[in-house]
């Protein structure tokens, strides 16, 4: 190929090279033959890798050479590091938040005025897997009762529940024989959260599991609920369990929020020593993703929604999370 492109007719006289001419490069993607193109691409890739390795070695040598004066190691970027700052993040000492929490619907629970009593039910005609999941869930959550829903409308059973002193209603929605949704409604007029549930594992599907969960009240761990929304969801989960865990039981229920996915696990722990604890997973596990949070009890048509997950607006950035 000619390398003299561009310097012709600059002056009209002898072509004085006023610009630097680069040698003709070729890009791998312009080769028409697929096999050859593939081959050239692999070769290019290998070259890149070699260069990267060499650069790394050089950096390491420099680092060792400098010894103590070396600049600190660069922190790798993770999604959690790069998370877009959410202005509703809760400070630990925020008074407004504290005040809100003292007066919201969970205040009676946290003041120990109410004892949680949970009603677990499913959508119509539950299949075996869902039924078993409900049973296992009721062993995990103390003071919970499973009732079959035989075609009853939620709006009608809610007043009945309130009359019988239930504090929370948990509806597990099923689709194609697997549970895929969860509606958690705090009863006397409390918020309703609708989750999408995925990766449900029943007890028998968990490897290396322990014995059945006992009747002791488990402890609770709530991780990573940072924003206001996350805070209220966390309190909602906390209000499912009785306030006073029984440490003899050595059971712990964990709700861990990571990138808007809430992972639920149920473990039995034992302290082998000061610094070591062993945990053994019992009980079902599942992950939840919040879809909507409604202010009143479950009412899909006229309810007042505090937060709905709108895919188009909220899923635009990969570094933005809401919980």
């Amino acid at each position, binding site marked *: 190929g000619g390398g003299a492109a561009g310097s012709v007719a600059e002056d009209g006289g002898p072509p004085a090279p006023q610009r630097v001419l680069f040698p003709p490069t070729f890009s791998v993607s312009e080769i028409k033959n697929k096999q050859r193109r593939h081959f050239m691409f692999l070769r290019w890739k290998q070259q890149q890798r070699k260069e990267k390795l060499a650069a790394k070695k050089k950096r390491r040598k420099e680092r060792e050479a400098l010894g103590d004066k070396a600049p600190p190691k660069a922190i790798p970027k*993770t*999604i*959690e590091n790069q998370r877009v700052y959410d202005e509703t993040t*809760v*400070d*630990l*000492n*925020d008074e407004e*938040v*504290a005040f809100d929490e*003292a007066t919201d619907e969970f205040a009676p629970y*946290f*003041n*120990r005025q109410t004892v949680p009593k949970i009603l677990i039910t499913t*959508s*119509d005609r539950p299949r075996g897997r869902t039924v078993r999941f409900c049973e296992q869930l009721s062993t995990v959550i103390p003071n919970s009762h499973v009732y079959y829903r035989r*075609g009853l*409308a939620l709006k009608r059973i809610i007043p009945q529940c309130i009359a019988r002193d239930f504090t929370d209603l948990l509806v597990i929605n099923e689709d194609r024989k697997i549970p895929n949704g969860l509606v958690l409604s705090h009863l006397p007029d409390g918020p309703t959260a609708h989750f999408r549930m*995925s*990766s449900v594992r029943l007890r028998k599907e968990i490897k290396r599991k322990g014995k059945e969960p006992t009747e002791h009240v488990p*402890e*609770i*761990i*709530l*991780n*990573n*609920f*940072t924003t206001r929304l996350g*805070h209220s969801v*966390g309190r909602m989960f*906390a209000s499912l*369990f009785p*306030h*006073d*865990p*029984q*440490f*003899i039981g050595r059971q*712990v229920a*964990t709700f*861990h929020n*990571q*990138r*808007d*996915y809430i*992972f639920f*696990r149920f*473990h039995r*722990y*034992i*302290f*082998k*020593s*000061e*610094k070591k*604890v062993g*945990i053994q997973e019992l009980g079902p596990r599942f*992950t939840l*993703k919040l879809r909507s949070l409604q202010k009143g009890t479950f009412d899909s048509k006229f309810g007042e929604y505090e937060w709905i997950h709108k*895919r188009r607006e909220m899923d635009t950035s990969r570094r933005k999370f809401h919980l």
Partner: protein
Amino acid sequence: SSQVVWDVLGNKQFCSYKITTKTQNFCRNEYNLTGLCNRSSCPLANSQYATIREEKGRCYLYMKVIERAAFPRRLWERVLLSKNYEKALEEIDENLIYWPRFIRHKCKQRFTKITQYLIRIRKLTLKRQRKLVPLRRKIERREKRREEKALIAAQLDNAIEKELLERLKQDTYGDIYNFPIHAFDKALQQQDAESESESDAEKEEEDDEDMDKREFVEADDSELSDFEDMDKLETSSEEEQEEEEEVEKKASRSKSKGKTPLKGPARRKRPYIEIEYEEETEPSTKTKAA
């Protein structure tokens, strides 16, 4: 000529409305009375034919006679049937008077079936319907992938273990686990590191307690943490401290001290020290290092 039509379409050659299965032939023609492919049920092969069809919840009787065979546009005559079941049956009878028995009978049967399923539709719409929401494949895949990555990033086991150890350190478990010395030293170190200007009284007190422990006295451990925040147990350290305190739960927990089925291997032996008193008499016991 209907016989000719049947000979051609029915059994021998191709009919586009015919569906064959192993045991039976079906007819897909929308004017077919029974749905099967028979000589008497084929609307193409019978010049005199009638059907019942429903549109938007109302039933109509369609009739085809040989006189209109030349006018395809006017071929099928349509009669609206009344909503009343018996009256509609009478209307069918009077419209199909002098028609073959087979067609009359099948028409009435079809009409009955149609009204029954219309009733069922109306009943079902009153009950709660399952709302079918279409899944979007791309989104489902994306969510699944993100969930997997989040799971890996979460490192759940580590997080839970860390949290439990934190709680142990913060002495939320109180009396149950007997690793007091270490935690105590740690607490000491912490205090040293944080504020050296703290009151000496406190320090001395702690030293005393330390000594106490080493003297093999049944320490009460109630000076250490208190069940300050039961609420700490349910909220992670990131949530703010609850103002409420709970004190009466201590009783139940110290009761639980009795049951320690698995604390055998976890139980630490206290270092056994005997204090040697300098006296005239030779001490008979040896001291062991701490």
